[in-house]
């Protein structure tokens, strides 16, 4: 396989973007990524999206988005893996360039969540669960997380309040991210007073679903040099994608997050590194319990101990293992099928030294982890500044 570098990145603000269409939102990110890559023309477009088929009544986004952007004649299609669709699309772009199938691939993650309203939104989100045996009995994504959180507290005796460290950290880091949905800090007291959503899970344990688009342009190091790109390049050093059972109830050990564990393991083995060697970790914090379980699955804490990492400053920008460095899904907002591409874009910002006030000192290597559902699918990537 060939070396693959990220030559360009682009992202839109995350939020309730009522006034912009699905196609134009994606175009903004695609255009920014191409401009950042000195105008490199992609041979293919891979789209990460989860809900457009329900929320916008639109399928075949590959054609729509390429067509709208004037990318005539390219290969283009959607990669769908629920909330891990962004990670899946990035994986596809990486494989396409690494294999020599194309020389340059554009990957865009896009979600237009607010095209649906009210209880239609919760119903749309339910399509990534087992329709016959989870969604049909009234389970929601938040309820899946609530079930895991309840069991975690019971099994390991973690204090309920400990989960607050994750949204508090995410909001603090989002303050300096101009693309973030929530640019204000919250404190532990605010967290503890938040209303329940799927008790014990409360409003602040859940990242707000939102609209957004993020894009990256992948190519070979040679192509990137020929294009005369001025900024540092970021190499994809390792990649891993793994599934678990779709339904939570089919797992012998639901708190294990095995898909996340093996995805991280594969990405790190491929990169010839140990997880502990990375300078930052963009863990998936769609729910605070998922950040805890993701940290444990990636090997940064023993089973049942992940919550402790939030208690002593280890995860802050100047800590031992900075996470959610631009606000994660809780602070930046959770653009669902685009979230995995946002993670990559944010990691690249860090590795290029372009993270502004949130810059992690001397960041050379980053790990990202994007989950579909409760780690029903997982994509992990190791990125490194060239």
């Amino acid at each position, binding site marked *: 396989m060939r070396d693959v570098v990220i030559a360009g990145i682009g992202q839109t603000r995350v939020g309730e973007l009522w006034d912009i269409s699905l196609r134009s939102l994606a175009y903004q990110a695609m255009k920014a990524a191409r401009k950042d890559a000195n105008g490199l023309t992609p041979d293919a477009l891979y789209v990460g999206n989860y809900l457009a088929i329900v929320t916008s009544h639109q399928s075949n986004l590959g054609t729509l988005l390429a067509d709208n952007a004037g990318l005539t004649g390219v290969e283009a299609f959607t990669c769908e893996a629920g909330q891990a669709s962004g990670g899946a699309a990035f994986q596809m772009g990486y494989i396409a360039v690494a294999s020599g199938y194309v020389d340059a691939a554009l990957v865009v993650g896009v979600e237009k969540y607010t095209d649906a309203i009210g209880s239609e939104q919760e119903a749309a989100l339910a399509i990534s669960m087992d329709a016959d045996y989870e969604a*049909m*009995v009234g389970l*929601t994504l938040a309820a899946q997380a609530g*079930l895991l959180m309840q069991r975690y507290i019971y099994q390991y005796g973690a204090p309920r309040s400990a989960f607050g460290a994750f949204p508090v950290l995410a909001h603090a880091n989002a303050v300096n991210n101009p693309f973030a949905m929530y640019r204000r800090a919250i404190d532990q007291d605010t967290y503890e007073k938040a209303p329940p*959503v*799927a008790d014990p*899970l409360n409003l602040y344990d859940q990242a707000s679903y939102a609209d957004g688009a993020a894009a990256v342009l992948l190519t070979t190091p040679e192509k990137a040099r020929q294009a005369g790109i001025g900024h540092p390049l970021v190499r994809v050093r390792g990649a891993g994608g793994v599934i678990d059972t779709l339904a939570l*109830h089919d797992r012998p050990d639901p708190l294990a997050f095995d898909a996340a564990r093996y995805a991280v393991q594969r990405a790190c083995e491929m990169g010839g590194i140990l997880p502990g060697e990375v300078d930052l970790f963009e863990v998936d914090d769609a729910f605070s319990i998922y950040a805890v379980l993701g940290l444990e699955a990636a090997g940064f804490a023993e089973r049942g101990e992940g919550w402790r990492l939030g208690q002593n400053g280890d995860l802050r920008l100047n800590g031992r293992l900075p996470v959610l460095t631009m606000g994660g899904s809780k602070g930046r907002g959770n653009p669902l099928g685009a979230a995995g591409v946002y993670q990559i874009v944010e990691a690249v910002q860090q590795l290029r030294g372009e993270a502004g006030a949130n810059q992690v000192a001397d960041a050379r290597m980053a790990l990202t982890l994007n989950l579909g559902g409760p780690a029903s699918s997982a994509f992990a990537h190791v990125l490194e500044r060239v």
Partner: protein
Amino acid sequence: MEIPRHWRLKKQRYALQGEVCPHCEGKIFPPRDVCPHCGNEARTTFTFSGRGKVYSFTHVTEAPAGFEETAPYTVALVQLEEGPVVTAQLTDVDADEVEIGMPVEMVTRKIRSDGDERGIIIYGYKFRPVMQH
């Protein structure tokens, strides 16, 4: 809405009908094409007793379409005495009385109503605390 699907699932919904693997005797619910225990195809039907214990639970306040009338409600992972775990609502119990390990049994109840003009009401399994004798 989706009438064929509801018709197809009625044995699972009304009678907790799953499978027993003819190769390894593993009990399977919901039914699958391939046994998760041994990897062979599993097709022999098996009806579960409907008795189990709460493995975990959560109280849902933000309900999706079709469940607005029911909210708030409690959803649990129920470990059946034969082994498999099923996701189901709890019924006939106050939210603050639910605890992990609590013995429960299956009952048939209204699950949801499709809010459209056809007004389909779907029945299926819920679990309630085991009555004390």
